[in-house]
């Protein structure tokens, strides 16, 4: 190897500086957000278990990554051409090749096993905690998502529409847009669908995403024990304003949830009544002067 010329040394220095800058900015952004290397979690047990499963794969991945990149870089450096080096004329080694094939397979079998051990706890809804919503209704087994043990859960129908989420609460004429209010410690099961195009429901801290497809009902659940606001947004391209189709889940103590629910119910009933009266008045007016045949939708109508 010839000694480095000043120009080359400079180039190398610049390269190192660039690497340092990248590492620095990565660390800085790592401080800003805790999710440099792992998915978000902390809101619901299923999100936490996905995080655990992810971390396990991450550890295996780091070992594989370091091992393979190390072997690659070491071979590249150690066996570079020099005067007099003769390349070994090896055509293969069956035992070695079978060895690493089996080795790779064993790692994957291990990950598979762990995944299936964890799967039930991620996919199947848990029981609500004792402090959870008392009036939560039993939900019945669907195709693939069993009801939570004890059967108590709050079942909310999530409907994706360009570009807003609509939440229909069970048992009463109560619905909300964009922000879903749920009681703490209560298992919330979601029936997810869409009215127009495909959307995807996702609140990262409360678990994975599930596509909202017209004509299908997709299912997931969460159980939040920490009151607070959990934010997410639509994850499947749904049109020009896809970036602003936001979703929020506000977790509140059970008592506050009841208050909110009752008020929402009263507000909607009042709005419907006002809407119906307004419509009647308009229709009468329209009957009187038949030239204006406009139809107007009542405020508070649910679509």
């Amino acid at each position, binding site marked *: 190897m010839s000694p480095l010329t000043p120009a080359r040394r400079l180039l190398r220095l610049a390269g190192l500086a660039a690497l340092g800058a990248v590492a620095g900015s990565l660390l800085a*952004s790592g401080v800003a957000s805790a999710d440099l290397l792992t998915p978000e979690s902390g809101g619901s047990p299923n999100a936490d278990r996905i995080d655990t499963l992810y971390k396990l794969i991450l550890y295996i991945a780091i070992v*594989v990554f370091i091992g393979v990149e190390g072997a*690659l870089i070491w071979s590249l450096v150690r066996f570079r*051409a*020099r005067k007099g080096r003769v*390349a070994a004329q090896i055509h293969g080694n069956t035992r070695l090749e079978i060895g690493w094939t089996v080795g790779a397979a064993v790692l*994957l079998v291990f990950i598979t096993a762990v995944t299936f051990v964890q799967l039930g706890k991620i996919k199947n809804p848990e029981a609500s905690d004792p402090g959870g919503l008392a009036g939560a209704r039993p939900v019945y087994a669907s195709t*693939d998502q069993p009801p939570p043990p004890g059967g108590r859960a709050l079942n909310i129908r999530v409907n994706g529409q360009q570009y807003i989420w609509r939440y229909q609460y069970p048992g009463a004429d109560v619905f909300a847009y964009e922000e879903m209010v749920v009681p703490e410690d209560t298992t919330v099961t979601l029936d997810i669908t869409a009215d*127009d195009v495909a959307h995807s429901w996702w609140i990262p801290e409360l678990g994975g995403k599930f596509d909202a497809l017209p004509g299908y009902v997709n299912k997931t659940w969460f159980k939040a024990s920490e009151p607070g606001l959990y934010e997410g947004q639509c994850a499947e*391209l749904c049109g020009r304003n896809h970036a602003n189709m936001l979703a929020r889940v506000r977790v509140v103590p059970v008592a506050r949830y009841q208050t909110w629910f009752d008020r929402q119910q009263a507000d909607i009933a009042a709005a419907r009544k006002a809407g119906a009266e307004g419509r009647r008045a308009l229709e009468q007016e329209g009957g009187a002067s038949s030239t204006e045949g406009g139809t107007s939708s009542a405020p508070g109508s649910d679509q």
Partner: protein
Amino acid sequence: MLTTDTAKRTIARPQVVAHEIERPSRGWVSWVTTTDHKKIGILYLFTTFVFFVLGGVEALLLRIQLGAPDNTFLEPDKYNQLFTLHGTTMVFLFVIPVFAGFANYLIPLMIGARDMAFPRLNAWSYWMLLFGGIVLYASLFFTPPEAGWTSYPPLSGKDYVPGGGMDAWIIALHIIGLSSMLGGVNFIATIQNMRAPGLGWGRLPLFGWSILIYSYLIVIVSPALAAALAMLLIDRHYGGTFFDPTQGGSALLWQHAFWFYSHPAVYIMALPAFGVVSEVLPVFARKPIFGYKAIAASTAAIGFLGLLVWAHHMFSTPMSTVVLAFFMLSSFLIAVPTGVKIFNWIATLWQGAIEYKTPLLFSAGLIGVFLIGGISGIFLAVFPVNWQLTDTYFVVAHLHYVLFGGSVFGIFAALYYWFPKMSGRMLNERMGRLSFWLIMIGFNLTFLVQHSAGLSGMPRRVYEYSASAGWTAYNQISTVGSFVLAIGIGVTLLNVVRSLKKGAVAGPDPWKGNTLEWFTQSPPPENNFDAIPRVRSVEPMKDIRREVEKETGVLQQQRAGHPLVKV
């Protein structure tokens, strides 16, 4: 032989036996009318690189928009159109056909054939590709498509995207799909039937193996895409309801048909690049490829398993656990032959005498970065984890590590390796090295942080994000990286233009290669070979050099540490 026999049997009488010799056409006419696989190959390469640049410019515009939170550089409709064009261009007009270009040029040379099996069909395939590309880009003059390169209905339906650009997209993909299918048939026929004497299946160059599997995959899966496109067109214009749930259709049907094509398309894009690496490494490590059979077999295994994993793109749709588990396990299975390839490549470098030329740099770079794409693929294959990661920037990062790290690095290795054969001139090594490092650094800057953006909740295909989301730093690093990457690519393009005129003259075999394309002149004459040697191993050129050495006493083998070629 034939004429003398005929002469003996027939009564001699004066006759004119001379035919008019077709005057060789020159200039642009020779390009437009050619059926020569080498010229068609170059047409393919030129066209696809033009589309590569277009797709790259689109990517830079996207990155500028995302370079700052709440940016207003692009309108939402323009943003959606640009990422649709970017994805469609890179997949259908660059990575898939660029390998048809390399294969067109190289497969007949590597197997010692005069031309492709069906030269006119070959020309037809190329022109269909060009016209398909023109159809897609003509939509720039009205409304470009904006439903993403995956164009899921109902969004891609008439109600939501009424513009003609969506129809241009459908028609363009039909034409391009037909082009690649016909190309695939041609490669299969050529490789099956036109190999040189002695060139059995066990001696087919690994690039040939990869193109064979590439072609079979194209021929098997493209009809599924064609069917899906036809259904979408019928839904949009002729009252069809294939994807309309209110009329008994299913929006998921499209996703299944689309991914039944588009997942194998990943291997259609990656396998030929792996084939390039399997050709380049042994030449520059001065060692035979480690485990030829294992690499060939893993190519076939990846191709076969690649047909069985499509629904892992749909883990978040309503699916029963059994189906989820099946597609997770089939995706895991693919990791095994892919791992085998990587291990065999590293073992090929092991104990070699590695010449650091640009093709080797890009090949080694491919192994290094593709590994990251492979590992992130394992995360995505575990469906509970996939529920968190899918449709986020983690997937964007993963697919670029596979398709840029896996395929485009291979394309650049191929360009640097075979440019001397195609043009007769070497590419400049200094510019090559500079280009490699800029691409390597720029690529990782751009895409490594996108994993983190996705992990912290950034979905794909959003034209803006708010500063409070915490994604700003990731996106800024990514945007800076994309420009470094673009400069790196620009250096290579400049290198190509410059070297066409000024490059060092290559001679027939500048790298001391292993395969038959190095047996003929650079660039090869129209008939490729005057005499086709009998092939006795997987490295016929080594045998030939050894023979020449024995007969003439002049050293033919390359010695470690001595320059391969003066550049």
